[in-house]
């Protein structure tokens, strides 16, 4: 689901920014229905369409409106792609966070040591990593 919900396609394609026109074209390529609104549910066999939809927004998104929320059927992680470049994940408890972190770490993705840009408010956990030299 797009952050804020609503329609997947631009309401006024004629005046839409170029990046949004590209997103629309990629959504069509992925087979997203023209008047789709709300959430999209993908089966494992839909992996190509899922990749197209997510990457379209991650690469071409430039504002909050193109950020995406993603969830597994388990609903024990809330993932959001951000136009700032980071992939943000919320958790219900610390053990689930640690399991997720271990999975990412095994693939070579550790927690960051710096903020994506100056508009980003530093969370306490990141301030702590920097202060204690963990990064």
């Amino acid at each position, binding site marked *: 689901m797009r952050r804020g919900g609503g329609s997947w396609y631009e309401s006024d394609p004629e005046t839409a920014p170029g990046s949004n026109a590209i997103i629309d074209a990629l959504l069509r390529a992925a087979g997203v229905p023209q008047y789709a609104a709300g*959430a999209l549910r993908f089966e494992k066999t839909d992996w190509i369409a899922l990749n197209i939809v997510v990457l379209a927004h991650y690469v071409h998104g430039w504002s909050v409106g193109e950020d995406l929320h993603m969830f597994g059927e388990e609903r024990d992680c809330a*993932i959001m792609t951000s136009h700032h470049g980071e992939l943000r994940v919320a958790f219900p408890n610390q053990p689930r966070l640690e399991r997720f972190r271990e999975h990412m770490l095994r693939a070579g993705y550790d927690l960051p040591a710096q903020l994506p840009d100056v508009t980003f408010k530093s969370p306490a956990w990141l301030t702590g990593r920097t202060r204690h030299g963990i990064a």
Partner: protein
Amino acid sequence: MQVIAESTFRPWLAAAGIRPHSRFQSSDVLVFEQDEDLSRFWFPSFVPSDLPGFVLTALKAASPD
């Protein structure tokens, strides 16, 4: 691929405790009511072709089965 109406999807999330952060409701930052501030973020590498793998890794971490 299936389109699910927001009026169905949001309650499905809410049943698992997922809702907009109480301090940032208008920005639709979705968090868990059990601990609204428990989140982390990761960055992909600088290699563009790594991006699909990065996203897939996160999706598998969220839904291993």
